[in-house]
């Protein structure tokens, strides 16, 4: 059926499209547009001075660096979790499977205070680590722990369905042709998982860069050392430095958009791999 004919039969395109565009504009697009609009009212020198301030640069480096390390940790351990859930049967699999989404469901402030309490020098996990000279809470390690927590479901939930959809016949063929199991995993399974694996990494990375609630409690918030970029935006706002907050935020927003485009590209690649 042609599109024109479909439109004649099904009603409501104009109405629903109108609601969609109007609501999207009012709730998302116009508010977001105020960020570049406000930044344009600043002089280029003032904008540049704000984002090249050593404290701001340190916060960008920390946010990006910690997000990258956390996403890498999730890429490794999340893959093992996804593989375990997709391929192995064990008692309580459904409960464990449901629990993976906890970081989506648990408010970030709750995650923040509970991780801080656990990893504080007197906490359940912090005390034994402190005895071995490892401080977690109020250090960069603590920031990474919080970002691993919130990023975990992205890697698992991106990889798990792809592992489940892998055609066992291909693995079987390779096995019957005499390939050893590890060789099958390396040459047959892994290349097929690569796009989804990168997508999961990118999603976890993107989420971790902007994360605020779970990090502010455990990070200690020392300027130049454990101060993430979203917190610095908050600090500037509390000092009524709207221009400063806007400049820092605009750089982060552009970074997020770049990542969003990259993720869209990766997801298209994943779909081609899975269906094609």
């Amino acid at each position, binding site marked *: 059926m042609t599109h024109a004919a479909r439109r004649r*039969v099904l009603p409501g395109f104009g109405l629903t499209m109108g609601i*969609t565009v109007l609501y*999207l504009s009012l709730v998302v697009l116009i508010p977001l547009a105020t960020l570049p609009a406000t930044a344009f009212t600043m002089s280029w020198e003032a904008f540049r001075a704000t984002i090249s301030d050593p404290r701001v640069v340190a916060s960008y480096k920390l946010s990006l660096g910690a997000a990258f390390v956390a996403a890498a940790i999730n890429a490794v351990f999340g893959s093992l979790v996804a593989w375990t859930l997709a391929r192995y049967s064990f008692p309580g699999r459904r409960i464990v499977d*449901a629990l993976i989404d906890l970081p*989506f469901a648990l*408010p970030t402030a709750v995650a923040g205070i509970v991780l801080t309490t656990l990893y504080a020098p007197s906490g359940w996990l912090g005390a034994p680590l402190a005895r071995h000279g490892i401080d977690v809470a109020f250090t960069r390690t603590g920031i990474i722990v919080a970002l691993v927590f919130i990023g975990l479901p992205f890697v698992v939930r991106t990889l798990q369905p792809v592992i489940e959809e892998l055609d066992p016949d291909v*693995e079987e063929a390779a096995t019957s042709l005499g390939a050893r199991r590890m060789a099958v995993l390396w040459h047959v399974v892994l290349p097929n998982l690569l796009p989804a694996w990168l997508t999961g990494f990118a999603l976890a990375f*993107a989420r971790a860069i902007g994360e605020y609630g779970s990090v502010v409690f455990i990070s200690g918030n020392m300027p130049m050392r454990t101060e993430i970029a979203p917190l610095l935006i908050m600090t500037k706002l509390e000092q009524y430095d709207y221009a400063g907050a806007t400049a820092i935020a605009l750089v982060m*927003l552009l970074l997020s958009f770049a990542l969003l485009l990259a993720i869209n590209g990766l997801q298209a690649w994943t779909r081609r791999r899975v269906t094609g």
Partner: protein
Amino acid sequence: MSGPLKRGHLTEPAVVRRTIMAIAFVFIALFLVVPLAAVFGEAFAKGWDAYRAAIVEPDALAALRLTLLAAAIAVPLNVVFGVAAGWAIGKFQFPGRHVLMTLIDLPFAVSPVISGLVFVLLFGRRGWLGGWMIDHGMKVVFAVPGIILATIFVSFPFVAREIIPIMEATGTEEEEAARVLGAGGLQMFRRVTLPNIKWGLLYGVILANARAMGEFGAVSVVSGHIRGMTNTLPLHVEILYNEYNAQAAFAVASLLGCLAIVTLILKAVLERRVRARAAVSEHDEPWESKSAA
């Protein structure tokens, strides 16, 4: 497609399998089980009476009311939007369709702090509209409307992104048949479309609600932290924790922990429903639907 593989020769050697599982379980225990258990452990650390006192305290109840109010406004609005967007994008082809879908996902790509910041830039005293509005007695930022706006923003994409693929997958034939048989627009929607999307819709509502009730960063920026006035539950948790009242903070946090557990259970149940529904429509043969009717 579902469930673990049963073919023995297609699994790894036992040593490898056990190692992978052990690492996965330790990781899950450390990062998911222990934190969730600790929320409730800390909440009851000083006994039931202290727990109860922290929750029935007036500021905590006010925070609970505001959290429920924000979700009760944000979620239905996002449902109306999600269904409208699902219909327009899922059932029709038009130029710019993919761009529109990307724009709908934008709130997920934005840091929560930035989600709050844009409303301060718009409605704050020195904002684009804020000066005029405050002069006319309308206060948005550091007041309840700002909290509701920020909540709508962060929970915006959930319903739409569940509904769009379902609308797309179910196609247009059933609705067209209803129209040809003389059904009006609303009747067609109620009798044909709604039954197809209802589990996906509910799934989106659960996720949107969890985010709406749990949002911290965006709401924190616009709230001004006025106790008993503009505090939601997550903000109240922060205040208590920063006042070194950890037990009370965890008691209030345990309410949000319960919300998380209920969300996870409903999500798991609905996922099975949605999957079953998708499997049915994949193999939908005319005689099967007749015998079912």
